[in-house]
C-alpha cells in the first residue's frame, strides 16, 4: 500500500498555509482511533480533510470555518470512539446494535444540551471565553515547556549525549572552561566511557563566490561530531576522519538553508566550490533541514585541524556520546582519573602549572541539560503562573455553574421525580459541561496557536531550541487532559449540589434554604481561593517588576544612546599580516569619522556584553609567579584610538590611547578599575608595567597609561570584570587578533540612518568585505535584559488576568448574595436599619472573605517565591514592601468589587423586597 506522502502532495499541503495547522491537528488527533483503522485509512482521511478544509477556507467566513473544524474534529472523535467499542462490524440481521444505540442517545443528549446552552448565551459565552483564555494560555506555555524542556534533543539515543566542560577551582572558575584539543586527544584515546567524542569551535566566515558576499557562522569541527550526534547528511557525505588532518582547507559540509538559498536546492551541488574567507572549499555534503548544531545560525561545517602535540587553549567546545548504560557521573569519574596523565603528555612546565595550579577538573553534564540551561526555571515558573490563572478561571466558571445549578434545581428535581436515574442526571450534566469546556478548549487551541507565534517572535531569542517550538501530540494530550478534568469538575457541581434530597428543589422557594446556604458557603470558599491565588501571582509579578526596575538602573559605565555597531572580518588572503589589517581599520575609522552626523568612531575586538572572555594570565613587573601559582586571568581587548571616547567609558586616571601609541608601539595600555584594584589597591597604577605570564617568548612589557571604568562582559548584573585594553597593533596579543573587529559609531542623527553610508564606505575600500551584526548599542543592552523583561511581562500579564478574574468573581458572588438576601435586607430596613448598616454588612462579608484569601495567599506566596531566588535581582524573594503593597492593592480592589453590590443593597426598597417574597 503506497500511503507515504509523495513530494507533490507535500507541496499541496504547503499551499494551505494557515489551514495546514488544522490538518496537522487532525492528523495528530488520529491517534485517538485504533491502530488498525488509522493505518488503513489515516492518510486518506487526512487528505480528504485537507481538501474539505481548503474548500471551507474558500467558501466560508470565520464562524463557518470554526464550525466546520469543530464538527470534523467531533466527528473524528466519535468515529474513533465507535471503532474502539467492540462489535463494530457491518450489522447483519439478528445481531445486536447496542453500542450504536448508546451512542445515539449520547448524540441526542448533545443536541439537547446545545439547545439549552443556546438559550443562555450570556452564561455560555462567559464560560467559553474564560475557559478559552485560561486553556489557551496554559496550552501556549505548555507548548514552550514541552518543546524546550521536555522533548528530547532531535538525535538518536540523545540521552547518551553529554557536554564536556571543565572547572578550575584554582582560579575560581566553577564551570564554562570548555575543552582544548590536548584534552580531546587524551580523552579520546584513554577514556573508557565514551563511544564518540567531538570538539569544535564556531567562527564567523565571509562567504564569497556565487552571489553577494555574506557573513555567516561556521562550525570548525572534528569529523566525529556527525557520528557522535548520529546524523546522516541529506546529500553527499559528512566530514571524514582524514579531512581532520589535512591543511584545514579543502572540504566543507553546508546547511540545508545555504543549499536552498545559494544553490537553489541543486541536487548536483556536491563537488562545487564556495569561497570562505577567500579560501576555496569543495562542498562534500548537505545536511538535512532540521540539523541545527551547535545553533540554527551555523551554516557550514569545515574540518578542524590542530597540532596534536600541543595542549591548545580552552576555546573548543566538546560533546561526547556515552557508551550504553554509562551515566554522566560515571563518565566524569572516568575523565577525572585521566588528569594526572596529562602532565606526561604535555611536559611543558608552565602548562603543568596552569593545569595543576588551576586544578582543571572535568565536568560531564547531559547535553540537553546544558542546552536548556536556565530557561528551564523560567519556563516552569511561567507554567505555574498560567496554571494559577487556570485555577482562578475554574473558580469563576465553577461559580457560574453553581448559580446555574441553583436556577435549574427545580428542573432537576422534576426530572428526578419523573423517574430520571442519578446516572441520567450525571450524564445530562456531563454532556453540558463537556460541550462548554470542549468549545473553550478549541478556542484555547486557536488562541494558543496565535500566542505561540507571538511568543516565538517576541520572546527572548536566547531561549534555547526556540526554533523547534511547535504543538505536537503531547501538547494536544495536555490540553485534552485539562479539558477532561475541567469537564468532570464542572459536570459534578450541579449533581453534587443536588445531593440526595432532590425534592428540596421543588420545595425551595426564594428564601435561602439549607442547601442554598451550603452553596453560598461554597461560593465564599471560591472567593477565598481566587484572592489567595491572585495574591501569589501578583507577588511574583511585583518581585519581577522590581527586579527589572533595579536592572534598568544599573550603570553599565558606557553611554548606549545613538551608537551604531557592526562587525567586519578581513580575510587572511587579502590582509596577510596585522599591519595591513590595522591599516585598513585605521583608514576606515578616519573615513567614518568624516561622515555627516558622526561624533566619534572606535573599533574593538569585543564590545561590552559581547560575552567573549579572551582571558590571559598577567604578571606585574618584579613579581614573577611562584612555582605552582597561577596569576589572575584578565580579559584582553584590542581597541583603536577613540574607542573609549566613542563609548563614553569614564576615564578615572591618566589618559586614553592615542594613535601614536599604536604607530610607535609604545606599549601603552589601559586597565579597568577592577584590574587596577586587584593589583594596586589604593595605589596609583599609572606607569606600572605588566607582562603576559608564562610567555617567555614575548619580551614586551606594557605600561599602564590610564584607568577606565568597568564595563560588563556577559550581563549587566555580573561582578566587575578585569579588562586589559591594548592598542590594535601590538606584537603580542594573547591570541586576540585585529582581523575581526567590532565598530562603534556615535552619531548625532538616528544611528541606523547611517547604515547605508557605512556600507558604501566599506565597499569603496574593499568590495569583498560584508558588514555583519548591524545593531545599535542600545539594542545590545536591551537584549541583555530581555530574559528578565520577558519573564516580567508574562508574569504581569498572568497577574493582570488573575486580578480581573478575581474582581469579576468577587463582584458576581457578592451581587448574587445580595439578590438572594433581598428579602432579609428589606426586613432589616423595615425594622429600622440604616442604609450604612446594610452596606457595611455586605462589605464586611466581602472583606472577610478577601482577608481570609489574603492570609492564605501570603502563606502560599512565602513558600513559593523562594523558587524565584535565582530569577530576581537585587530584591529579596520575601521583600516585605512588595508583599504589603500587593496585599493592600488586592484588598482595596476586593472591597471595591463588594462596594458596588453593597450600595445596591442599601438602596433596597423594603416594600418592594417584602412584596416579592
Amino acid at each position, binding site marked *: 500500500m503506497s500511503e507515504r506522502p509523495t513530494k507533490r502532495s507535500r507541496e499541496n499541503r504547503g499551499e494551505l498555509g494557515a489551514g495546514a495547522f488544522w490538518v496537522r491537528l487532525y492528523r495528530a488527533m488520529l491517534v485517538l482511533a485504533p491502530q488498525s483503522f488509522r493505518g488503513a485509512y489515516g492518510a486518506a482521511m487526512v487528505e480528504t480533510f485537507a*481538501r474539505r478544509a481548503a474548500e471551507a477556507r474558500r467558501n466560508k467566513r470565520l464562524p463557518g470555518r470554526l464550525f466546520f473544524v469543530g464538527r470534523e474534529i467531533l466527528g473524528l472523535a466519535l468515529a474513533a470512539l465507535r471503532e474502539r467499542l467492540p462489535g463494530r462490524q457491518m450489522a*447483519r440481521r439478528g445481531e445486536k446494535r447496542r453500542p450504536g444505540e448508546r451512542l445515539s442517545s449520547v448524540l441526542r443528549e448533545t443536541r439537547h444540551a446545545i439547545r439549552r446552552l443556546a438559550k443562555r448565551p450570556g452564561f455560555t459565552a462567559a464560560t467559553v471565553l474564560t475557559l478559552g483564555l485560561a486553556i489557551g494560555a496554559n496550552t501556549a506555555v505548555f507548548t514552550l515547556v514541552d518543546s524546550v524542556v521536555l522533548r528530547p534533543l532531535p538525535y538518536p539515543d540523545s540521552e547518551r549525549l553529554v557536554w564536556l566542560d571543565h572547572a578550575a577551582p584554582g582560579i575560581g572558575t566553577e564551570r564554562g572552561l570548555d575543552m582544548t584539543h590536548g584534552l580531546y586527544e587524551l580523552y579520546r584515546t584513554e577514556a573508557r566511557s565514551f563511544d564518540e567524542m567531538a570538539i569544535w569551535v564556531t567562527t564567523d566566515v565571509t562567504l564569497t563566490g556565487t552571489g553577494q558576499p555574506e557573513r555567516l557562522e561556521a562550525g570548525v569541527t572534528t569529523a566525529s561530531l556527525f557520528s557522535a550526534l548520529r546524523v546522516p547528511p541529506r546529500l553527499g557525505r559528512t566530514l571524514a576522519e582524514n579531512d581532520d588532518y589535512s591543511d584545514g582547507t579543502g572540504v566543507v559540509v553546508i546547511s540545508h538553508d545555504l543549499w536552498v538559498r545559494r544553490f537553489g536546492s541543486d541536487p548536483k551541488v556536491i563537488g562545487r566550490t564556495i569561497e570562505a574567507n577567500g579560501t576555496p572549499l569543495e562542498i562534500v555534503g548537505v545536511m538535512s533541514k532540521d540539523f541545527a548544531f551547535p545553533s540554527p545560525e551555523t551554516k557550514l561545517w569545515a574540518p578542524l585541524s590542530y597540532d596534536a602535540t600541543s595542549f591548545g587553549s580552552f576555546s573548543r567546545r566538546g560533546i561526547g556520546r556515552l557508551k550504553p548504560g554509562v551515566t554522566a557521573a560515571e563518565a566524569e569519574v572516568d575523565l577525572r582519573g585521566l588528569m594526572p596523565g596529562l602532565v606526561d603528555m604535555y611536559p611543558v612546565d608552565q602548562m603543568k602549572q596552569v593545569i595543576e595550579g588551576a586544578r582543571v577538573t572535568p565536568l560531564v553534564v547531559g547535553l540537553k541539560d546544558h542546552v536548556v540551561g536556565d530557561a528551564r526555571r523560567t519556563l516552569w515558573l511561567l507554567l505555574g503562573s498560567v496554571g494559577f490563572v487556570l485555577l482562578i478561571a475554574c473558580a469563576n466558571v465553577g461559580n457560574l455553574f453553581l448559580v446555574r445549578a441553583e436556577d435549574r434545581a427545580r428542573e432537576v428535581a422534576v426530572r428526578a421525580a419523573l423517574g430520571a436515574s442519578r446516572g441520567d442526571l450525571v450524564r445530562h450534566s456531563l454532556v453540558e459541561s463537556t460541550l462548554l469546556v470542549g468549545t473553550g478548549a478549541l478556542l484555547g487551541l486557536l488562541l494558543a496557536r496565535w500566542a505561540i507565534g507571538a511568543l516565538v517572535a517576541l520572546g527572548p531569542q536566547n531561549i534555547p531550541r526556540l526554533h523547534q517550538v511547535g504543538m505536537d501530540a503531547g501538547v494536544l494530550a495536555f490540553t485534552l487532559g485539562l479539558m477532561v478534568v475541567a469537564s468532570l469538575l464542572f459536570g459534578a457541581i450541579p449533581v453534587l449540589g443536588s445531593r440526595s434530597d432532590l425534592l428540596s428543589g421543588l420545595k425551595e422557594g426564594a428564601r435561602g434554604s439549607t442547601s442554598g446556604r451550603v452553596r453560598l458557603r461554597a461560593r465564599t470558599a471560591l472567593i477565598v481561593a481566587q484572592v489567595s491565588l491572585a495574591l501569589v501571582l501578583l507577588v511574583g509579578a511585583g518581585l519581577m517588576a522590581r527586579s527589572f526596575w533595579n536592572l534598568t538602573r544599573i550603570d553599565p559605565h558606557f553611554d548606549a544612546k545613538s551608537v551604531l555597531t557592526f562587525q567586519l572580518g578581513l580575510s587572511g588572503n587579502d590582509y596577510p599580516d596585522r599591519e595591513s589589517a590595522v591599516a585598513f581599520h585605521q583608514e576606515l575609522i578616519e573615513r567614518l569619522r568624516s561622515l555627516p552626523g558622526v561624533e566619534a568612531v572606535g573599533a574593538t575586538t569585543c564590545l561590552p556584553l559581547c560575552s567573549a572572555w579572551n582571558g590571559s594570565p598577567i604578571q606585574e613587573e618584579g613579581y614573577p609567579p611562584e612555582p605552582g601559582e597561577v596569576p589572575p586571568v584578565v580579559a584582553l581587548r584590542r581597541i583603536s584610538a577613540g574607542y573609549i571616547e566613542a563609548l563614553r567609558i569614564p576615564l578615572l586616571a591618566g589618559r586614553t590611547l592615542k594613535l601614536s601609541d599604536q604607530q610607535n608601539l609604545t606599549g601603552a595600555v589601559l586597565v579597568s578599575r577592577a584590574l587596577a584594584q586587584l593589583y594596586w589597591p589604593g595605589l596609583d597604577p599609572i606607569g606600572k608595567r605588566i607582562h603576559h605570564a608564562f610567555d617567555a617568548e614575548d619580551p614586551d612589557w606594557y605600561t599602564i597609561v590610564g584607568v577606565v571604568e568597568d564595563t560588563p562582559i556577559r550581563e549587566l548584573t555580573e561582578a566587575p570584570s578585569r579588562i586589559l585594553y591594548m592598542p590594535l597593533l601590538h606584537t603580542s596579543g594573547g591570541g586576540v587578533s585585529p582581523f575581526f573587529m567590532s565598530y562603534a559609531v556615535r552619531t548625532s542623527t538616528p544611528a541606523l540612518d547611517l547604515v547605508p553610508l557605512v556600507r558604501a564606505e566599506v565597499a569603496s575600500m574593499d568590495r569583498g568585505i560584508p558588514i555583519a551584526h548591524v545593531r545599535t548599542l542600545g539594542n545590545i543592552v536591551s537584549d541583555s535584559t530581555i530574559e528578565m523583561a520577558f519573564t516580567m511581562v508574562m508574569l504581569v500579564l498572568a497577574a493582570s488576568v488573575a486580578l480581573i478574574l478575581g474582581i469579576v468573581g468577587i463582584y458576581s458572588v457578592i451581587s448574587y448574595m445580595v439578590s438572594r438576601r433581598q428579602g432579609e435586607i428589606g426586613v432589616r430596613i423595615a425594622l429600622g436599619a440604616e442604609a450604612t448598616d446594610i452596606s457595611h454588612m455586605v462589605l464586611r462579608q466581602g472583606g472577610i472573605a478577601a482577608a481570609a484569601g489574603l492570609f492564605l495567599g501570603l502563606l502560599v506566596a512565602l513558600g513559593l517565591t523562594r523558587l524565584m531566588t535565582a530569577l530576581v535581582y537585587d530584591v529579596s524573594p520575601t521583600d516585605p514592601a512588595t508583599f504589603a503593597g500587593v496585599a493592600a492593592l488586592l484588598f482595596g480592589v476586593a472591597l471595591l468589587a463588594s462596594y458596588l453590590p453593597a450600595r445596591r443593597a442599601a438602596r433596597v426598597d423594603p416594600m418592594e423586597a417584602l412584596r416579592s417574597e
Partner: protein
Amino acid sequence: MPPDRPQPSDFLPLSVLSFHVLLALGGGPAHGYAVGKEIERRSDGRLSPTTGALYQALKRLREGGLIERAPEAEADSEDARRQYFRLTPLGRQVAEAEARRMDQLVRVASDRKLYGRSS
C-alpha cells in the same frame, strides 16, 4: 469450513449513510472526498457526513464485502494518499435489494394514502 456466503438480504435495512455511499459508488470508482461530495449533492446538503463518519462507513462496507479498493484508479491518482473504492458484485446486489425494499415501502405507503403519488 468456509462460512456461508453472505446473502444481500442479510444486510438490510442499510443505514442511510451506507446506502448513500453505495449509491455514490454506483457511478464507478471514487475516492473518499468525492464520495462525500456526491452524497452532499444528492441529498441537497441534508446529509453531510464528517470525514470520520464517512471513512468509518467505508471501512464497514469494505469489511462486509460490499465495496473494495480500486487499485487501477489509484495508480492514476495525483495524490498517493488517496484511496479509491468501487462496488463489489455483492455491494451492487445489496444496493438493489435495499432500493427494492424502499420501493415496496413506498408502495405500501401510497396504497394507504400516506404518500401522495396517486396512481
